[in-house]
């Protein structure tokens, strides 16, 4: 399942809803992205995450489907927030569940690597020097490249 929302993410509740009653699950891997107070060596007081409504959901659903094609998952969930964030706030939550741990761990890493490079979100950071748009990171592209061809 995919959700794009302004509200905070209740990790415990999301996990419970995702796995409840499914006794084929042996492992759940999750990743929670949170806001750091430091970016490229500069202190960041707050951040606004802009996205492309419609495309975001479409792309997240495509990549979730791709993960379910590559790995035999029992459940998967992507929740991505937008709006204004303060340091420590949760930004994104990815969870994958499978009978064995390897499929859960790999697919979770796959999804978050993809999200970082392909999901249409843009970060506007508030620093002492004013607001600045964050540049894309080459290391993120490299992380995604190791998964090979993914849906456009």
């Amino acid at each position: 399942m995919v959700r794009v929302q302004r509200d905070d993410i209740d990790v415990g509740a999301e996990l419970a809803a995702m796995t409840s009653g499914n006794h084929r699950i042996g492992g759940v891997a999750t990743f929670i992205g949170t806001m750091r107070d430091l970016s490229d060596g500069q202190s960041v007081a707050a951040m606004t995450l802009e996205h492309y409504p419609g495309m975001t959901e479409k792309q997240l659903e495509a990549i979730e489907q791709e993960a379910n094609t590559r790995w035999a998952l029992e459940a998967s969930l992507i929740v991505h927030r937008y709006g204004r964030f303060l340091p420590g706030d949760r930004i994104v939550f990815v969870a994958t569940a499978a009978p064995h741990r390897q499929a859960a761990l790999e697919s979770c890493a796959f999804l978050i690597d993809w999200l970082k490079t392909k999901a249409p979100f843009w970060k506007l950071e508030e620093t002492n020097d004013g607001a600045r748009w964050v540049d894309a990171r080459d290391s993120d592209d490299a992380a995604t490249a190791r998964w090979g061809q993914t849906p456009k």
Partner: protein
Amino acid sequence: MKLLYFAWLRQRIGVTEETVTLPGDISTVGSLLTWLQGRSDAHATALADLSVVRVAVNQDYARAADPVSDDDEVALFPPVTGG
């Protein structure tokens, strides 16, 4: 054609979205970008370096050679920085 702009492209061009009618010789993403560069000074500045401009046609990533038409929703934005 419905055009959407995001992040600093939106700020530099000065509008969130606009509707344009394509000249007959504009049929690909690449030719659309070149045409848009001449639309205003703001467009020219925002689209000066196309290596940092990404394009989505109907909410899917597109490349320079991909086709576009007046019925499409086309979005222009910088490389994404999500997650």
